[in-house]
Structures are given as C-alpha cells and as structure tokens.
C-alpha cells in the first residue's frame, strides 16, 4: 500500500469517526446523554490520534513540516480544532462549545477531503525565506483556531442572550456557559488570535519584500486580509473602551470571523497563495 493510499484511508477513517463523535455530542446537547457525551469525547481522541498519524505520513512524504499547501493548512487547522475541543472537554468547558467547535472542525476536515489533495507545491522558488513562510503559516493556523474559538463563544453569547431576553427557559439554558463567561472567553480568544494574525501577516510581508516580489502586496487578498484584521482590532478597542454592549461585541466577533472565512475562500480567486508568485 502506498503512502497516499494509507493517508487517504486514515483520513477517511478519521472523517467517519469525527462524524460519529459529532452525532454523539449533538445527542447529548439535544437531550442530556452522559454516555453519549463520553463516547463522543472518546471518539474525538481517536480522531485526534488518526489526524496526528495522517500528519506524520505527510511529514514523511514532504521530508519536513507539511504546511505549505492549502490541503495541509486545513489539515492542521482541523487538528488544532480537535485539540481545542479536547482541551474544552477536559476543562469541562461545556458541551455546546464542543459541539460548535466540532461542527467547524468537521466542515473544514470534510471540505479539505472533497476539494483539495495533498499535491506538490512550488515553494521551492521561495527557498530563501522558507523559515519565514513556515512561521507565517503556523501563526496563521494558530490564529484561525483562536478566532474560531472566539466566534464559538460569541455565538453562544448571542444564543443565550436571546433566550434569556425572551424568557425561554429550558434545560439547555442551564447547561450553557453564562453570559459573562462567554463574553470573557470570546474576548480572550480574540485577544490571543488577533496579535497572532497580525504577526503572521508581518512575517509574510517581510518574506515578500525579501524575495523582492513586492507586486504581490497589491493583490486583493492583502486588502481583504487587512480589513479582517482591522475588524478584530476595532473589536479589541471597543471592548477596552467598555462602550459597547455584549451583544454588539458578539456581533463584531462573528463579523470578523465571517470576513476571515471569506478571505480564505478568496484564495481561489487570487493568485496570492499559488506560491509561485506569478
């Protein structure tokens, strides 16, 4: 069996188990089901192990850190989300947080399998700034994971706020983290994710300038990325000023994330991440 077949086999198994885990977590959120919750978390551990094995295969295929193709980027992102979900489960951070994180992680993992392949890349032309690009991709990945977590808490905030405002009391309300906590966690995650994103962009700019490919800075992607970063910077400023309500802040957080996702989808329109620099 070739490496590629093995990788696909592991990927498919992880995908299937991720779906099962999501179902069990969902059943627990729908109606308290402690055994389903345990099973869901257990399956998530197996998914994490399979993803680690898959990334290990990619490592051996690439003879180095596999992060330079969109496929690898999303693979790492899904892995980060699984690890974050497990950390939330370990700290008993709430089943609804895990559910939303798993939905995001599973969607990314599934789309990666359907749309992308672990094909080769043309990074060889960037050989002089390899280290910087590595740093850029890793930081971008970590910031995406942190911003995803921040968005999950923002969504939970809006959901709970609406329920409490409209006096719709149910068992689910009691199981959600309270408004103050979700607001605080959302802010903390974004406070971590935004500087990571900013540093990641600075590193990318440095590598572009060092390679002398400054034309790339005029790409649409640069502008949209800066707008996304700007939304998050405004979010932090508003939060610090204390002039906006929790609902407004949650909406800003979701808007910023929506822009970040949109920006990622722009990859297909822009030549920026073709890695060739053409």
């Amino acid at each position, binding site marked *: 069996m070739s490496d590629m077949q093995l990788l696909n086999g592991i990927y498919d198994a992880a995908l299937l188990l991720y779906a099962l885990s999501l179902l069990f977590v969902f059943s627990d959120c729908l109606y308290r089901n402690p055994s389903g919750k345990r099973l869901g978390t257990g399956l998530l551990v197996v998914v994490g192990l399979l993803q680690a094995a898959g990334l290990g295969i990619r490592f051996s295929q690439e003879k180095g850190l596999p992060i330079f193709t969109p496929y690898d980027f999303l693979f790492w992102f899904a892995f980060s989300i699984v690890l974050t979900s497990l950390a939330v489960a370990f700290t008993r951070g709430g089943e609804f947080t895990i559910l939303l994180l798993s939905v995001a992680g599973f969607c990314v993992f599934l789309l990666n399998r359907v749309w992308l392949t672990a094909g080769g890349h043309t990074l060889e032309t960037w050989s002089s700034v390899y280290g910087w690009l590595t740093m850029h991709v890793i930081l971008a990945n970590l910031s995406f994971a942190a911003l995803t977590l921040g968005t999950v808490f923002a969504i939970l905030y809006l959901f709970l706020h609406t329920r409490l405002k409209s006096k719709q009391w*149910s*068992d689910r309300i*009691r199981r959600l983290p*309270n408004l*103050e906590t979700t607001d605080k966690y959302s802010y903390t995650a974004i406070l971590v994710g935004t500087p990571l994103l900013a540093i990641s962009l600075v590193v990318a700019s440095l590598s572009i300038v060092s390679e002398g490919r400054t034309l790339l800075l005029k790409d649409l992607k640069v502008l949209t990325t800066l707008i996304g970063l700007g939304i998050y910077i405004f979010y932090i400023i508003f939060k610090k000023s*204390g002039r906006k*309500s*929790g609902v407004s802040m949650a909406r800003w957080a979701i808007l910023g994330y929506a822009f970040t996702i949109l920006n990622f989808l722009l990859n297909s329109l822009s030549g920026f991440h073709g890695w060739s620099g053409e």
Partner: protein
Amino acid sequence: MHIVVVGLNYRTAPVEVREQFAFAESDLPAALHQLMKTKGVLEGVVVATCNRTEIYVVMDRLHMGGYFLRGFMEQWFGVKNEQFAQHMYIYEDEQAIAHLFRVTCGLDSMVIGETQILGQVRSSFLTAQAEGVTGTWFNRLFKQAVTLGKRAHSETSIGESAVSVSYAAVELGKRIFGMFTGKRVLILGAGKMSELTVKHLYSSGAAEVIVANRTLSRAIELAEKFSGKPSTIEDALKSLNEVDIVISSTGADGYVLSADQVANAMKRRPSRPLFMIDIAVPRDIDPAAANVPDVFLYDIDDLEGIVESNLEMRRSEAAKIEVMIGEEMDEFQLWLKTLGVRPVIRALQDKSNAIHEETMESLFNKLPELDEHQRKVIRRLTKSIVNQMMHDPINVIKEMSGGKQGNEALDYFSKIFALQEQLESNSDGGDSAPVKQSSSTERTAGSGDFSVPKTVLAPAGLLGR
C-alpha cells in the same frame, strides 16, 4: 430472612405526630441496641430526619414482624400504638429495598431530588455500623443505596434546578453573571420575599446591597442584615446605573420604575447587563423596560414559570432514576442469590479436601517407601484431578442459583453431593447477624438457602389497617 422498613414521613404524618417520633442523635446508639433486642430483628438501621423516621431491619420472619417493631416504637417513644399506627407504613422485601433506594436518591423527599437525604442515610448507616448492629445484608444494601444516590445525582440533573421562586431568581442571575462576586444589588421595598432573594444573592458573594424603602427605618433594619446601605427609593433610583441586580417588591399601586428611567440608566453603563426581578403584585417596574437592550426583566409569573419548568425537568429525571433503581434491585437480588451459593460451594470444597486428605494419608501409609518429592508430586496431581472434577459442577451451580429455581437447585446440589453435614457445621461459625443469632430454623446470612421472596410483598399500606 426478610428486609422490613416501618416508618412515617411528611406524607403520612403531620408534624405534630412526626415530632413525637424524633430520635435525638445522642440517643440513637441506645435506640439501635434496644431495637436489636426486639424479637426477630437481626440487623437494624434508623433513618431519622425532620421529614421522616424510618426503621430498617433484617428479620428472620415476616409473621408478627410489624407487631414487634411497633412494640419497640411504643416502648422507646412512650406513645400508644393506637396513636401512631394509622400514620405508619410498612414495606417488606423488594418494596423495602426499592423504598430505601428511592429515599436515598431523593425521590421520596418533599422537594424531589434534594441531596441532603443522601448524607442523612449514609450517616444513619455509619452510626448503625459503628454500633455493630449491621451485618452482611445491610452492609451491602446501604453501601449500594448510597452509591446509587451519588450516581443518580451525578448522572442526571435531578438536583440541579431551582424549585423555589427565590432560588429561581438566583439561578437566573447565575446565567447572566456566573458569579455574584463584586455585584451590587438594589432592593426596592423591604418585603419578606425580596429579603429571602437577597439573602441567597448575598450568600453567593454579592458585594454590596442597597436597601431602599419608603420608610427609612425598615430599610436600615434590613440593610444591617447584609452590611448594606439604607436609602430612600428616590435616592436609590438615581444610582440605578451603578447596580447590577434590582429586586423590587414595594407594594406601591403604580410603577416605581419606568422604562425611560431604566433606558437612561443603561445609557450610562452600556457594556454591563442589568438583571431586574419584579416580585411585586401589582408590578413595580414598567414591563416595557424589558425591551431596553441588555436589561433582563423577570416578574413573579416568569419566575414561577421557571420553577414549574424545573419541577417538570426533575420529574423527567426521576423517571431515569427509577430505571436505575430497577437495575440496582436486580443486582442486589443477584448478590443475595450468589450469597446463598457461597456456603454450598465452600461445603463442597471442604468435603472434597477432606476426602483428598484422607485418601493421601491412607496411600502414604500403604506405600511408606515413597520419598518426599514423590509424595509432593502425587499430592499435587491428585489434587488437580479433584479440582478439575469440581470445576464444572461449581460453575453450573453458580449459574443455576441465580435462576428462578435457584433454591431448588441448591437443595438438589447439596443432596447429590451429600453436603448437609458440612453445611450444618459451617453454619455454626458462619457470617450471621451481628448481635445475635437467629433462633429460627431459617438460615442466616452466609448460610444456605435464602433469598428475598418475590411474591411475599406487602402493599404499601399502613400498619394497623
């Protein structure tokens, strides 16, 4: 042997009756020892709380059991049987076990799912155990009941939701703020209900309490209880933007707080939510204030709705616990049946060991030339033959003893292997009741044939009827 519980609780007896049957904690050891002197009683535990007094016993007979236990109560409390018989209930065997499990899980409590009773049952059992009045049956049964109680609370949400209006307000506040540490509370009107609510908030860590009342003297009185600040209503409303929680119960005819006042206060504190509880009838706070962003306004009907919803949740969780109780009862029954097979297996092993020893003795007498090594080898191999021969019958009887005709199977097994002599000699030193031996012909715990009879179930009726 039989498990019996007699008792009275908040459902069967009014407080004036219950108070006559309250066991003082210091008297409990003496009461337990006197209980053990009651005819037929082999093990005993007394569960005494403000809502119930229950005596759990293992008896060697059911016949007259209730009569003897009533006699004990009559003697201990000095109350005539006729005065309390109508308030008492008696459960036997399976029903008694199920009742204990339900009590421990909080299903029999006034507030369904409360956890206090679990600690009380555990403490009652530990007292009885320390006094040496529990034995094999109750040591197992009460430990299983306490473990089940813990499981019921950890695996379901029966005890999580508030079932009083004041606690519902606190629970709601926790959904908004998480903790009340550092939060400022304003009480408008120093009524009983608002006092109770603020008491819960204050004990949960609320930092500052401002008590506003039309009569300042009453405000001062209540403020002192919570190290708070007394104020007039007019002054307090000026600082509305500084508080996080408002509890209103003034008894005024019109609205004390308009939506505009709330909106103006919120403009001065845009990033912090305001939780308002209006428990007054007629209402003190204009309902339109609920539309102001980040204001959570709940009136008495909303809170009662939450309580009702929580009670419904508890009832649905109770159904899950009933299933758990059913499983635990099956497990206890199985344990009882396995308990019955143990002495029979021990008797068989004793008998086979004795035969083996005798045969070896005889063999070595006939073959004195055998050296020590040869003797060891012969002893080991013949022992292996005996063990292999015993292996299957032991496994089969273990399985059969758990079946419907377990007692019959044990009886046949004892007859086939002629174990009566061993069983009788073993039962002399067996694991029986803790304080005294049964005088009846039935076997005690640790001996041969007994089980909780499935059909001997008394209705959940009252003694004396």
